[in-house]
C-alpha cells in the first residue's frame, strides 16, 4: 500500500527528477578511467541514494503494471519473464542478472511496448545511464572464468598449417565439421573430441607431412566441381582476358612428375537440347599457372548426337597432337584425349558415383611439387545463338535439363587431376623452403635434424620446445631415417609427430603451480601470444610475436598495443573477416541459400560469390583502414564487380574484378549492411522475402535483443478471403504477415519484428530493388516498436542510427565472445560497456574495440578451478571409471 502511494506521489515531480538524472549523465563518461573489469569504480556516489528512489518511481509508473508479481500470479506472459516490483533499485548488484536484462531492452528501445506510455527521451536515457552506472559500480573487480581448453577448429587448423608449412589445404578434406555455439565455431565448450576426430588428426598429420615434403607419391585423383548454379557466360577473374567461363583452381601437386587433367561438362552437357542451341566448334583451353598447356576441341555434347560440324581452322581435328609442344605441356605420353582409355569417362569413378557421363577431355603435363594454378576455359570467339525470346537470364544452369530462357554456352563441370605418374622427389617448393632451414650436405645430418625439429615444434606448439621435446622428436627422426633410408624421410616423421601432438591440436595453457582455486591468475606471455594470434588471425603466432613473448615483454601494455596494431595491418586479419564477420553476418550461410531458379532466374553462383565478397571487402576495409564500426551500417561506399553492379543497377562497371565505388545519392538505399545482397538473401526464403526473418536478424545482430521463438501449436491462418470481386488472389507478403498477427499472442512479437522487415520490402528475395510485389505497389511503411514511423530502407537505417550506442555494444559483445571463445555472461556486461564507451570516444574505431578486449582481464587471465575428483593420485577418476567399464 505504501508503495502504491509513493508511486502516485512521484508522478508530479518526474520532470524534475529526469533533470537530475540528466545532470548525472553528462559527467561519468570522461570520469571513467578504466577498461576491463577494473571498471568504473567511483562515479558520483553522493547522488546514488535519492536517485534510486526516483528510479523506483519510474519503474512503478511505467513498468510494474505488467511486470509485477501479481501479474505473474495471474499468469501474464510479461511477468512470467520478469517481475520488477520485487527488485530493489537501491541494491542493483543483488539482481545484476535481471537488471542487465532490463538495461538491454531499454538500450534497444524495446520497452515499454509501442502502445504503452513512455517517459520522455531525457528521462528514458537518464534511467539507462543510472542503471548502467549502478551495475558497473557493483561489478566484481575481476571476472575471468576459465574459458576452457580450446581445440583448433577446422579453419584454425588449416591456417596453422599454412603458417607453419606454407601449405594451403582444404581442411574439410581431412577433418569433420565443428560444432558451434553462441554464434561462433571457435567456442571451447563446443569443440569436443571423439575417436573419429583423433583418428582424423593423426591421419591428417601423415597426409600433410607427406604432401609438404613431396616425396614421390603414388597416383591419386582429386576432383574439383563447379557449383550446380554456376554461370559461365562471362570472364572469370584470374583467367586470361578474352576467355569466357570455365574454372580456375589452386592445386597442391604432391611431387614432381606428370599429371593429367580431365575436364567434364556440367550435367553431362545436357543443358542444351540435342544439337539445338549448342555451339559447334567450341574450344577448351587448359592453362597451368597462366600459361597455355593445350587447346582441345570441346566435345562435351557429342554424346547427345549433336552434328559434328566441320570446324576448320588452326586446331581443328586433332588439336592435342598438333599442340603437343605447348608451353609446359611436354607430355611424354600421348597427349590429350588419346591418353585416356576409350570412353574413360564412362568407366571412371564418375560412372559409379553419380557422374553424368560425357566424353572426357584430357591433357597431360609435367609440373613440380607445390601449389599451381590450373585452369580450363573457353576462348570467347563464338557468340551464343541465344534462344531467349524475351531476355537473357543471368543464370545459365538448371539441373533438370533444358529450360526455355536459359542460354547454352558449354560449361565446365569438373576438373579431375590425376597423378603423379613417373614421379620424382620434389626438388623445391615453398613448403620445403619453409621446412628445411638447413640442408644435410652443408650441415651435419643430426644437427640439422635437430634444428629443423626445434623450428617446427616452436611454430606448431607456439613456444620454444624443451630439450626433452626435441629429444622425443629426434627419436622419430632416427626411426624414419632408418626405415625410409634418407634424411627427408626422417624429417617427414618428425613433422607427422609434431602435427599429431596435442600441444598443436589444443591451445594448452599452463597453470602456474602457485595458482589457487577460484583465483584468477595472469596467463604467461606465451599463452597470451597464442590468444592474440588466434583472435586476430585464427592461426599461430608468427616469429616476432613468439620472440617478444619469450622475452616476457608482451605483458607490457605498450608492447602489447604495438603488437596489436602490427597484427591488425597484416593480411592474416582476413581471418577476422572470414570467421568473425562470416559468422556474425551469416556470410557463411550464403553458401547454402538457393533461391528458386524459376522465381529468381537471375540468381546464380557468381552473384552469390560477389555478394559475399562485397561484404567481406566492406568489413575488411573497416579493419584495415581502422574505421568506425558504425560505417558497417552507413558507409557510402561499397565494392562491386560487373555482375553485382548490374544486379544493383550501378552503371559503368565492367569486368570481373572488384573495385571500390561511392554510392551516388540515388543508391542511398544500398548504403551499409541493410542494402547488401548478402544480408537480404540470407534473410529471405528461397521463394520470397521474409520480413519476419529480416526483422529478427536486425534485432538480434544490430540491436542485440532477441524476440522469443515462435510458440508451438501456431494457429492455422484463416482461409484466404475473397475480395469484393470474389477473387482470392495471392496476397502480398505484407498481407500474409499481417494475417499472421491476428492472434493476440502472435501480435506481441510480430509487432516487434515485422515493421522492421516491412521497411525492406523494396528489396526482393535476392536483393533486387523493386517498387511492386506482384502487381501491388510495395508498402514499406511501418511503426517500429519505439513508436517511430518509418518508410523504406533509408528511414530504417536512420532509425537504427539512433541506437548507435547499442550497436557498438553489440559489436563489442560479439567480438568478445569470439575473442574469448566462450559465451558472454551478465557479469561481463560492465566490461562490454566500458570497452564500448572507450571506443565510442574514439569514433568506435575497430582498433579501439580490439585493444579494449585484448587488454581486458578475461583476455589476459585464467582461473584455477577445483578438482572435482577427490583423488589422491590426481590422476582423475574418469580414467579409473572407464577402466572399470572395459
Amino acid at each position, binding site marked *: 500500500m505504501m508503495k502504491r502511494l509513493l508511486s502516485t506521489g512521484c508522478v508530479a515531480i518526474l520532470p524534475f527528477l529526469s533533470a537530475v538524472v540528466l545532470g548525472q549523465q553528462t559527467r561519468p563518461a570522461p570520469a571513467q578511467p578504466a577498461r576491463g573489469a577494473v571498471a568504473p569504480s567511483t562515479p558520483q556516489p553522493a547522488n546514488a541514494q535519492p536517485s534510486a528512489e526516483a528510479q523506483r518511481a519510474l519503474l512503478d509508473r511505467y513498468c510494474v503494471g505488467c511486470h509485477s508479481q501479481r501479474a505473474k500470479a495471474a499468469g501474464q506472459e510479461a511477468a512470467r519473464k520478469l517481475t520488477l516490483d520485487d527488485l530493489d533499485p537501491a541494491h542493483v548488484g543483488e539482481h545484476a542478472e535481471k537488471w542487465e536484462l532490463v538495461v538491454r531492452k531499454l538500450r534497444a528501445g524495446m520497452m515499454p511496448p509501442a502502445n504503452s506510455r513512455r517517459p520522455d527521451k531525457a528521462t528514458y536515457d537518464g534511467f539507462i545511464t543510472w542503471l548502467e552506472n549502478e551495475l558497473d559500480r557493483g561489478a566484481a573487480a575481476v571476472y575471468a572464468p576459465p574459458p576452457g581448453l580450446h581445440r583448433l577448429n577446422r579453419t584454425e587448423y588449416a591456417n596453422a598449417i599454412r603458417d607453419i608449412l606454407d601449405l594451403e589445404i582444404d581442411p574439410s578434406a581431412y577433418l569433420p565439421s565443428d560444432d558451434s555455439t553462441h554464434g561462433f565455431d571457435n567456442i571451447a565448450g563446443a569443440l569436443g573430441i571423439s575417436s573419429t576426430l583423433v583418428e582424423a588428426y593423426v591421419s591428417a598429420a601423415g597426409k600433410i607431412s607427406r604432401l609438404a615434403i613431396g616425396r614421390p607419391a603414388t597416383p591419386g585423383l582429386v576432383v574439383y566441381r563447379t557449383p550446380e548454379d554456376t554461370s559461365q557466360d562471362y570472364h572469370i577473374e584470374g583467367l586470361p582476358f578474352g576467355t569466357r567461363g570455365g574454372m580456375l583452381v589452386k592445386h597442391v601437386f604432391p611431387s614432381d612428375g606428370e599429371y593429367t587433367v580431365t575436364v567434364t561438362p556440367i550435367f553431362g552437357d545436357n543443358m542444351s537440347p540435342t544439337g539445338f542451341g549448342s555451339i559447334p566448334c567450341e574450344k577448351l583451353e587448359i592453362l597451368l599457372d597462366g600459361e597455355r598447356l593445350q587447346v582441345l576441341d570441346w566435345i562435351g555434347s557429342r554424346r547427345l548426337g549433336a552434328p559434328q560440324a566441320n570446324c576448320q581452322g588452326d586446331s581443328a581435328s586433332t588439336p592435342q597432337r598438333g599442340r603437343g609442344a605447348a608451353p609446359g605441356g611436354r607430355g611424354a605420353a600421348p597427349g590429350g584425349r588419346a591418353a585416356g582409355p576409350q570412353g574413360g569417362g564412362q568407366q571412371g569413378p564418375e560412372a559409379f558415383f553419380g557422374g553424368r557421363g560425357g566424353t572426357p577431355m584430357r591433357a597431360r603435363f609435367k609440373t613440380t611439387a607445390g601449389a599451381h594454378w590450373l585452369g580450363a576455359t573457353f576462348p570467347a570467339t563464338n557468340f551464343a545463338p541465344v534462344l531467349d525470346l524475351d531476355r537473357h537470364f543471368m543464370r545459365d544452369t538448371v539441373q533438370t535439363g533444358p529450360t526455355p530462357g536459359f542460354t547454352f554456352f558449354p560449361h565446365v563441370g569438373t576438373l579431375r587431376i590425376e597423378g603423379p605418374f613417373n614421379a620424382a622427389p620434389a626438388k623445391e617448393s615453398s613448403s620445403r623452403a619453409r621446412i628445411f632451414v638447413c640442408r644435410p650436405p652443408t650441415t651435419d645430418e643430426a644437427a640439422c635434424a635437430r634444428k629443423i625439429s626445434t623450428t617446427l615444434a616452436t611454430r606448431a606448439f607456439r613456444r620454444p620446445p624443451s630439450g626433452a621435446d626435441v629429444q622425443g622428436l629426434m627419436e622419430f627422426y632416427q626411426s624414419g631415417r632408418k626405415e625410409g633410408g634418407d634424411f627427408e624421410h626422417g624429417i617427414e616423421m618428425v613433422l607427422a609427430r609434431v602435427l599429431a601432438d596435442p600441444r598443436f591440436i589444443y591451445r594448452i595453457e599452463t597453470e602456474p603451480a602457485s595458482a589457487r582455486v577460484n583465483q584468477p591468475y595472469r596467463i604467461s606471455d606465451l599463452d597470451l601470444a597464442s590468444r592474440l594470434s588466434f583472435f586476430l588471425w585464427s592461426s599461430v603466432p608468427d616469429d616476432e610475436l613468439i620472440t617478444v613473448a619469450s622475452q616476457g615483454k608482451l605483458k607490457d601494455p605498450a608492447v602489447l598495443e604495438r603488437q596489436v596494431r602490427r597484427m591488425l595491418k597484416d593480411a592474416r586479419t582476413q581471418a577476422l573477416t572470414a570467421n568473425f564477420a562470416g559468422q556474425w553476418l551469416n556470410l557463411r550461410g550464403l553458401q547454402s541459400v538457393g533461391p528458386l531458379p524459376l522465381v529468381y532466374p537471375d540468381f546464380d553462383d557468381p552473384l552469390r560469390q560477389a555478394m559475399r565478397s562485397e561484404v567481406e571487402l566492406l568489413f575488411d576495409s573497416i579493419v584495415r583502414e581502422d574505421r568506425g564500426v558504425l560505417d558497417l551500417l552507413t558507409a557510402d561506399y561499397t565494392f562491386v564487380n560487373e555482375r553485382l553492379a548490374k544486379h544493383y543497377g550501378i552503371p559503368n562497371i565492367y569486368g570481373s574484378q572488384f573495385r571500390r565505388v561511392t554510392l551516388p545519392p540515388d543508391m542511398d538505399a544500398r548504403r551499409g549492411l541493410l542494402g547488401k545482397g548478402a544480408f537480404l538473401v540470407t534473410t529471405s526464403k528461397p521463394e520470397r522475402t521474409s520480413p519476419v526473418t529480416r526483422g529478427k536478424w536486425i534485432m538480434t545482430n544490430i540491436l542485440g535483443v532477441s524476440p522469443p521463438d515462435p510458440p508451438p501449436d501456431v494457429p492455422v491462418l484463416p482461409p484466404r478471403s475473397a475480395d469484393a470481386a470474389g477473387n482470392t488472389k495471392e496476397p502480398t507478403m505484407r498481407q500474409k504477415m499481417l494475417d499472421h498477427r491476428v492472434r493476440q499472442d502472435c501480435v506481441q512479437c510480430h509487432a516487434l519484428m515485422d515493421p522492421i522487415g516491412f521497411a525492406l520490402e523494396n528489396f526482393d528475395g535476392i536483393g533486387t530493388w523493386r517498387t511492386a510485389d506482384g502487381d501491388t505497389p510495395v508498402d514499406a511503411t511501418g511503426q517500429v516498436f519505439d513508436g517511430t514511423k518509418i518508410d523504406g530502407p533509408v528511414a530504417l537505417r536512420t532509425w537504427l542510427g539512433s541506437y548507435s550506442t547499442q550497436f557498438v555494444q553489440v559489436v563489442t559483445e560479439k567480438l568478445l565472445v569470439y575473442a574469448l571463445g566462450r559465451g558472454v555472461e551478465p557479469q561481463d556486461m560492465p566490461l562490454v560497456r566500458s570497452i564500448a564507451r572507450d571506443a565510442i570516444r574514439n569514433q568506435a574505431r575497430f582498433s579501439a574495440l580490439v585493444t579494449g578486449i585484448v587488454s581486458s582481464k578475461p583476455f589476459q587471465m585464467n582461473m584455477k578451478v*577445483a578438482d572435482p575428483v577427490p583423488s589422491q593420485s590426481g590422476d582423475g577418476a574418469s580414467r579409473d571409471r572407464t577402466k572399470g567399464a572395459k
Partner: protein
Amino acid sequence: MFITKRHIPRRTFLKSAGCTLALPLVDAMLPASTALAAAEAASPKPRFVGIFFPHGMAPGYWEPGAEGRLPAKLPFIMESLEKVKDQTVIMTGLWSKSAEPPEGTTGSDHWVAAAYLTGIKPRKTAGSDATVGSPTIDQLIAQKIGQETLLPSLQLACEDPNSSSSNCGEGYSCSYTNSISWIELPTPPNEPYVHTSPLPMELNPQNVFERLFGSGATPDERRARMQQNRSILDSIREQLASLNKELGAADRRTIGQYTEEIREIERRIQLAAKATADVPDVPLPTGIPESFDDHIKLHYDLTALAFRADITRVATLLGARDLTARSYVLPKNDLFPNGGVTTSFHGGSHHQEDPVQIRKYADINRYHVSTMAYFAEKLKSIPDGDGTLLDHSLILYGTNMGNSNQHQHYDVPHILVGGANGKLEGNRHLAYERKTVTSGNLLLSVLDMFGVHRESQGDSTDRLAKL
C-alpha cells in the same frame, strides 16, 4: 545393384601423396574384417541404421489409413517402399514428447534433433555442458553389437553445419542440431546430468570411404603407415601422462578423454594387425557431390558396403538440418516423371494448411523417403548369410514433428524397414492413440530387438505395444 565392381586401375584413386586422399588409420584393417566376415557368415549379424529428417511430413499424404496390413496402394509419401513393403512397418500416432519445448516456454523445438534417438529433452545450454542425458540408442546398440568390428558405428550427414552455424536455437547448443549420435562420457560424482558428447557426422563420402577402406598403393605402404601411426599414438599417450601435470583440472578432463580415444583407435589397430593383404577393388568417391541426390545415395552405398564387409554394423544419417533453407532437385524417375525443383524444406513445412502447399510439401517427403527406399532395396539385393542384408538389418526412419506447420510434436511419422533378424514382422500399419504413446517406447523396443534390454529409454512409459 550394389556399387559396381567394374575394374578401375587402383592407382587411379587410391592414395595420393596428399592431395586429399591418403591413408587413414584403418586402411590396413579392412582385410581382417573381411576375413572375419567370411568366417562368421554362418550366423548373421544384426545391423542398425537410424535416419532423421526434420520438419515432419505433409498431413494426409503419409498415413496408411486403417490399422493392420498396409494398404494395397501405399500412401503418396510412402509409395517408394512398395518393393520392400513386406519388411515395412509404418507407425502413426506416436508422440515425440521430447521434442516439445519445456513446459511454459516457447521456442526450442527446432533444436532437438539430438532427442530423436534418446527420447530426452536436451539440457538447455549453449556451453560445454551440452548433453542429451543418455547415449543415443544407436550407440547403445553399437556397444552391444559393434565392438568386434573395425568401426563400432558410422555417422553420416548431408548438410554442413558450418554453412549456417549462426542459426542455432536460443540458448541451445548447435551440437543438438548437428549430431543425432551421442556417446556417454564419464560423469563426475554429484552431477545431476549424465554427461554425453556428440559424435561428428561425416559429410564427405571420400573421408567415409577412407575410414572404411583406407588407401595406400601397396600392402607394404599400408603396413609402413600403420606402423607410423601406431608409434605416433604410442608416443602421444606417453606424453599425455606428463602433460597432465601442467594442466588445470578442467583441461585434464578433456585431455583424459583424448587419451581414451587414442586407446579406442589402438584397439582397432590391434584388430587390423591380423590383416591379410587385399583391399576390395572399389572406386574411391571424390569429395562431396554437388547434388543432394548423388550425395545421399553415395552415403547409402558406402553404408551398404560397410555392412557387407562387416566393417561396421551401426550407422546413423542426418538427412537435413533443422531450419534448412535447402530445396531439392527431384530426380526424374517413376516417382517424379517431371523432375522439377521443390520448395524450400523449412519454408514448405510451414504450408499454412493450404492444400496446394501441403501437396507441394508432400513431394519433399516423398522424395526423402524414396532415398531410404533406395537404400533398403540395395540391402535387399545383397546376400548375407542365409538371407539378405535387409533381412538382418533394421532401419529406423523418422522425424520429430507431425504437422510441421504448427510445430506439432504428436502424430509423428516413424517407419521401420528390415527383418531385424526375424524380430520384425513387416507389412503392417500400427496406429496409436494421439498424445499417448511416446517415441521413447519405440526406442525401447528397438533396443530390445538388438538384445539391449533396459528399464526405460527417455520418456518411455512402456515397451511399444503391438510391435
